[in-house]
């Protein structure tokens, strides 16, 4: 390779490179315009108001408070609890979704009849909106007349008293986590199914001929080939987990009881639209976005290196 041009040379070359790339920029233009208008500008706006005690009706009267919103947040036990809830949810639902999805994908990849039926059925939770799914689970876990308590108590005799799921700050996490897993498995399963179908059959046959049983084939042939997909899923599912919102908002009525069941985003909603603390709400959303960004970056860096081997 020839010697790399200096910074100045590269800067001077920019204008002509831009000119030559004008077609590319034309392709990019509509998308970029939308992106700047509806994502970049709002992000910048959000950042700005997070430094103020923001009056949403008369913005001019907003008072600059610097980092106060952020400081107040980090000291707030309710915020810390919300972070804990969100992290726990992510730590539980992501592995569960991935493992179950892998199992389902492997099963769906077999030569069976009714493939379309099974695929659509397993994908049903994915295409149902969060609102509807949350309502269903609220109904299922109703402490006095819900199906779950009926099963546990009257049919299986496992508990003596009806479990008051939504009345307990920790027990509430059970329907919420189950909901998350139930809703997400299909999505990952379909993606893994596609990836599985892309694995050349010859590789597996060769392994089988070499005497490898199904488990070893899974471990040494399938999983390594699935790694990029698994990494992708991990990153996306973690982002989804950290963005936990609607199910908690509806099921816990915004953090009930005692503000102990908040997720980071429901707390943001409460601060912004209930307590009219727009600056504080913006601070929360910034912290979350920053955290998600860092976590995703770390995951990609760490796991990508191993993929390239």
């Amino acid at each position: 390779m020839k010697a790399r041009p200096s910074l100045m040379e590269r800067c001077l070359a920019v204008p002509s490179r831009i000119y030559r790339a004008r077609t590319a920029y034309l392709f990019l233009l509509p998308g970029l315009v939308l992106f700047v208008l509806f994502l970049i500008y709002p992000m910048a706006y959000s950042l700005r108001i997070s430094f103020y005690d923001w009056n949403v009706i008369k913005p001019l009267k907003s008072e600059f408070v610097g980092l106060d919103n952020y400081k107040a947040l980090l000291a707030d036990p309710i915020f810390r609890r919300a972070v804990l809830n969100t992290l726990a949810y992510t730590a539980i639902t992501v592995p569960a979704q991935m493992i179950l999805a892998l199992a389902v994908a492997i099963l769906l990849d077999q030569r069976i009849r009714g493939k379309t039926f099974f695929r659509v059925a397993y994908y049903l939770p994915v295409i149902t909106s969060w609102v509807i799914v949350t309502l269903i689970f609220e109904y299922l876990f109703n402490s006095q007349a819900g199906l779950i308590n009926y099963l546990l108590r009257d049919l299986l005799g496992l508990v003596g008293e009806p479990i008051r799921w939504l009345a307990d700050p920790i027990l509430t996490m059970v329907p919420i986590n189950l909901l998350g897993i139930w809703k997400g498995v299909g999505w990952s399963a379909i993606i893994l199914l596609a990836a599985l179908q892309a694995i050349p059959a010859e590789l597996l046959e060769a392994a089988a001929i070499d005497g490898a049983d199904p488990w070893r084939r899974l471990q040494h042939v399938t999983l390594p080939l699935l790694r990029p997909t698994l990494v992708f899923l991990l990153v996306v599912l973690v982002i989804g987990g950290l963005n936990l919102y609607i199910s908690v908002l509806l099921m816990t009525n915004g953090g009930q009881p005692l503000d102990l069941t908040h997720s980071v985003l429901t707390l943001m909603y409460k601060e912004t639209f209930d307590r009219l603390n727009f600056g504080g709400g913006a601070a929360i959303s910034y912290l979350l976005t920053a955290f998600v960004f860092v976590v995703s970056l770390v995951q990609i860096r760490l796991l990508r290196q191993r993929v390239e081997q």
Partner: protein
Amino acid sequence: MFLSTERSWVQQAVVYGLLIMGLVIVVVPFLLMISTSLKPQQYTFEYPPRLIPSEVSFTNYVQAMGKDLFFRYFLNSLLVAVLTTATTLLISSMLAYAFARLDFPGKEPLFYLFLVGMMIPPVTLIIPQFLVVKALKLYDSYAGLVIVYVAMSLAMQTFLLRGFFEGIPGELEDAVRIDGGSPWTIFWRLILPLSRPGLATVTIFTFLYSWDEFPWAHVAIKETTRRTLPIAIALFQNQHLTQWGQVFAASIVALLPVVLVFALFQRHFIRGIATTGMKG
């Protein structure tokens, strides 16, 4: 894959057995929903709960659909979803093509910027987005809904399509270029037609997103006749009482189009995922 060429009936039984067990877990909540939608309110909380209603009644469906312009909301949702999907397909494929095939300064950083866009929780951006839509005079219009939905979908869909386009052999394009074709010709006449699976993927994801979206739809549209379906469903929850039967009836009606779209596109969809950037 597991079974390779042998097909012992034990293995078959195990596979079907497991699939059906999983199916039950997946499907029971829906059965519950259907069953409740067929019960009048007084049986909603009957104990012990019955999956099969003691008296099947369609009043919930009649009331839900006769209520408040339900079908109007349904059609609005359909219109918005179709427009959003079509626009997203066009714009994100243009973006993806630029990233996959064209070279320009700032390509990688720009792509990373788009990825960051996938990480922003949408609900946090509502107020500034409202300000922009209002400045563009699109408040209370279908366009106002669509334009934000498209913007929010771009990051993910561009990412998917980029991976897909990168999988198309370069020689095909070279052939067109040699014949004097511009990048636009390549894009429109070569890349897009070859990308059906990828486009099917984008279609399903975008349609789904637009169909179910609530927070933005709730503030961006004021005129009652222009509202979308999720709002209609939310309005069944009274301050004082939740009309479970009607909520579920409406939800089931709302589910049908998406199930249809998925069933129609799923084969392309799965093939599409196999060749999109989801593999890295």
